[in-house]
């Protein structure tokens, strides 16, 4: 389908003349209402040197009041204009300070064309390379390098050519198939809309021409696929709604639904409130099938000819978007279209330097940083590589507590490991094993500060269970750190991994039919939630051992608080690192209460 909208991303700072360039493009294509233009003749930024009564083009692309005070833009702003062939151009403007990479990645994720501004009076700077690297990473199709302010340099050809030669060297290691260099002046209006009279040595396209001549690259025609967005129901009607990608569907096509792998045929296609016989790429449709199939939101419909390679392990590049750094082994929600599943970054392979494209070793990823990672999903997905499909190769990571969007990822390739391991079902299962012991398998997860009394309580509970003939086991955080977890320290990432391993061991023991008592600080809510998600409803009992920190310090059974206070233990919970109180524990016991009372409380939940 012909694209009616072209999206342009502008890269550069106000100093490069970005706002002026876009402002001029809008005014000269008559895309701005005249009253708005009038207001830009009156308003002035502090320090502005533009004469009263002249248009300050740069004011046309700014937004919120805070920005006007600071004289800079802070987010992504959008502007719209009509191209001569009737298509619409949406210009997104990402600002140029510390949240830059994040904002630019947001704007670049949907951009067809990237407009990279170079201030000719300053030459190629590191930010230019950063812009090109991000355009390349986010799969921007065409890049226009606008070499601006040539009016201030006598419109000299040699300056333009030097900058072009420098950049072409850097471009050779990037994935940018289509780059156009244009010499121009935003202030004087050379080569923006009309050809410049001052640079007859340049015979190429003006900025507007370079934008208008862009066409979407010929799609790598694969098999059509559609993610189910909504199951639509009416009387005697059940259809599956979504948007078709990478091909077309026809009535009577045989399709497969993933993950159920059921095969059926399309009996009806509804688009635009009509029944149609076929639908194209990028159309929003509702499909009806010949047979009743098992399908819900987030499932995938593909042509049955397509061989799917579901995987739960991927190599991906991630742009980190949030102040709280990416933590290896922590569980996040992965959203890919309407598909959602918990996912964990299992390894940060390296960071990508946005200025040089070089790789540096890393164990974490802070805001605005880009990393190459391995990611594991809880359920297998059928993602494609980003270079093949932006739509099916992207995902975002969402914090499981605040639901903030924290990361954006591009699949490089899937790791096939997942496919080769299938879950073996055994006939003697958890229920059978637990029944043999006349008990219900459960995990009692005791969380709390060091010295709060977790081990003491676990010990007392287990003694009572033993006396009643129950089969149990205690997983003690400290004890496990002497063996299984001996390689882990106390950084948030190591703690996340520590909790992950302990919860996986607990899961094995629950499967053996045991009552498992876990005594572990587990200071982060996200890690505890992930642990809980491994177990069936009602199987995981979170017990918060809520002992005031003063009491823990006074007790200090292992002398750790003393040591931490002297700076000997950097990541000590409650001193160098926070303890996140459980939001909705199943049970709260006080470590300074009567031990027997606490034990009885817990036993009541178990038996």
């Amino acid at each position: 389908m012909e694209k009616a909208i072209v999206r342009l991303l502008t890269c550069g700072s106000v100093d490069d003349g970005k706002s002026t360039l876009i402002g001029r493009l809008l005014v000269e294509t008559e895309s701005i209402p005249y009253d708005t233009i009038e207001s830009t003749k009156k308003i002035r930024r502090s320090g502005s040197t533009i004469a009263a009564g002249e248009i300050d083009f740069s004011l046309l692309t700014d937004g919120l009041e805070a920005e006007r005070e600071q004289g800079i833009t802070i987010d992504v702003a959008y502007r719209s204009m009509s191209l001569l062939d009737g298509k619409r151009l949406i210009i997104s403007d990402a600002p140029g300070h510390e949240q830059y990479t994040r904002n630019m990645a947001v704007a670049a994720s949907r951009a067809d064309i990237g407009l990279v501004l170079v201030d000719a009076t300053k030459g190629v700077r590191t930010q230019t390379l950063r812009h090109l690297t991000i355009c390349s990473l986010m799969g921007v199709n065409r890049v226009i390098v606008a070499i601006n302010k040539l009016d201030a340099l006598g419109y000299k050809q040699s300056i333009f050519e030097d900058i072009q030669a420098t950049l072409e060297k850097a471009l050779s290691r990037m994935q940018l198939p289509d780059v156009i260099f244009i010499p121009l002046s935003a202030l004087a209006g050379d080569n923006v809309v009309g050809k410049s009279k001052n640079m007859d040595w340049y015979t190429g396209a003006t900025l507007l021409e370079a934008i208008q001549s862009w066409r979407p690259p010929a799609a790598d025609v694969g098999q059509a696929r559609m993610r189910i967005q909504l199951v639509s129901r009416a009387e005697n009607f059940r259809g599956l709604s979504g948007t078709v990608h990478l091909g077309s569907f026809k009535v009577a096509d045989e399709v497969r639904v993933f993950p159920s792998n059921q095969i059926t045929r399309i009996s009806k296609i509804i688009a635009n409130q009509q029944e149609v016989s076929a639908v194209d790429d990028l159309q929003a449709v509702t499909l009806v099938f010949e047979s009743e199939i098992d399908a819900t939101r987030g499932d995938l419909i593909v042509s049955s000819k397509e061989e799917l390679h579901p995987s739960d392990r991927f190599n991906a590049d991630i742009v980190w978007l949030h102040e709280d750094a990416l933590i290896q082994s922590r569980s996040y929600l992965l959203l890919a279209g309407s598909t959602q599943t918990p996912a964990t970054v299992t390894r940060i392979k390296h960071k990508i330097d946005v200025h040089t494209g070089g790789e540096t070793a890393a164990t974490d990823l802070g805001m605005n940083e880009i990393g190459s990672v391995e990611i594991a999903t809880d359920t297998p997905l059928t993602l494609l590589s980003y270079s093949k499909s932006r739509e099916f190769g992207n995902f975002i990571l969402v914090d499981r507590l605040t639901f903030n969007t924290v990361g954006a990822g591009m699949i490089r390739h899937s790791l096939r490991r997942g496919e080769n391991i299938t879950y073996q079902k055994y006939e003697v299962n958890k229920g059978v094993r637990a029944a043999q012991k006349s008990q219900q398998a459960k995990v009692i997860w005791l969380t709390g500060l060091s010295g709060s009394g977790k081990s003491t309580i676990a010990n007392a509970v287990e003694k009572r269970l033993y006396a009643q003939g129950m089969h149990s086991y205690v997983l003690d955080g400290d004890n496990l750190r002497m063996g299984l977890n001996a390689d882990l320290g106390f950084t948030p990432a190591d703690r996340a991994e520590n909790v992950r391993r302990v919860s996986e061991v607990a899961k094995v023991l629950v499967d053996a039919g045991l009552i498992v008592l876990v005594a572990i600080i587990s200071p982060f809510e996200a890690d505890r939630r992930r642990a809980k998600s491994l177990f069936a409803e009602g199987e995981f009992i979170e017990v918060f051992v809520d002992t005031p920190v003063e009491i823990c310090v006074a007790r200090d059974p292992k002398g750790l608080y003393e040591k931490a206070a002297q700076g000997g233990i950097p990541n000590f919970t409650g001193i160098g690192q926070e303890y996140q109180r459980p939001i909705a524990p199943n049970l709260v016991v006080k470590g300074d209460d009567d031990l027997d009372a606490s034990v009885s409380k817990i036993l009541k939940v178990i038996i």
Partner: protein
Amino acid sequence: MRETAAAYRRPVMMYSIGKDSSVLLHLAKKAFYPAVIPFPLLHIDTTWKFKEMIKFRDQAVAKAGATLVVHTNQEGIASGINPFNASISEYTRVMKTVALRQALDKYEFDAAIGGSRRDEEKSRAKERIFSVREAGHKWDPRNQRPELWHTYNTRLAPGQTMRVFPISDWTEVDIWRYIMQEQIEVNPLYFAKARPVIRRGVQLIMVDDDRYPLNPGETPELIEVRFRTLGCYPLTAAVESKAQTLTEIVDEVFEVKLSERATRLIDGANEDSMEKKKSEGYF
């Protein structure tokens, strides 16, 4: 819209009777056909809307087979506030912003679809398609979730609600072109007709009923006018026009090049007014 219907417990669609709402309603019909629109429409009635708006609303909703919820801030009515005895911004806050918050709370709507567009006003250029509102419907423009590709984060933390702007990227011309292309019925007030108007400064105000306080000796004159946006009649200025068909309107919109909200008295108040209203909960 499908995303909203699928992801939320109690979504609602704002219906303000204007052309953007007509387009939203049409899109909703298309998105869910043959099923009916799976969420109710919400109209915040200030009691000062044009009579033709209310009539049109009831017809359009009935035709779509949709459910309509109308909410008025009764405390506001009881306090006697109206467009003449309070400042325009105070009146709007009480009868629109507060009323909207009341309605969202009363019906426990967790997501509200609105027809705002980025081209209408500068601060709207910063909205996401899925824009989170904190508890109390507060908008924090500095703390908005980044939105990439078409991968929308629809999840809500406790206390948060979502505002959804499906036609954020559209412009006024797009709206009219789409109305033309799809033959969508829009309110007759958008078409030029001789209407009783008075002059207030440079603005033309239509006198829709006898509640409008006229100056001594003043009588409304009949002038051929139409409206570019619809709202409360004392606050929505008309423009002189002869455009009686959609084609003529599109030609006029292309030619006039006047920011459409300039005919709404409220936004002229000061340059930052929309952002302030939005951070309090306005659409």
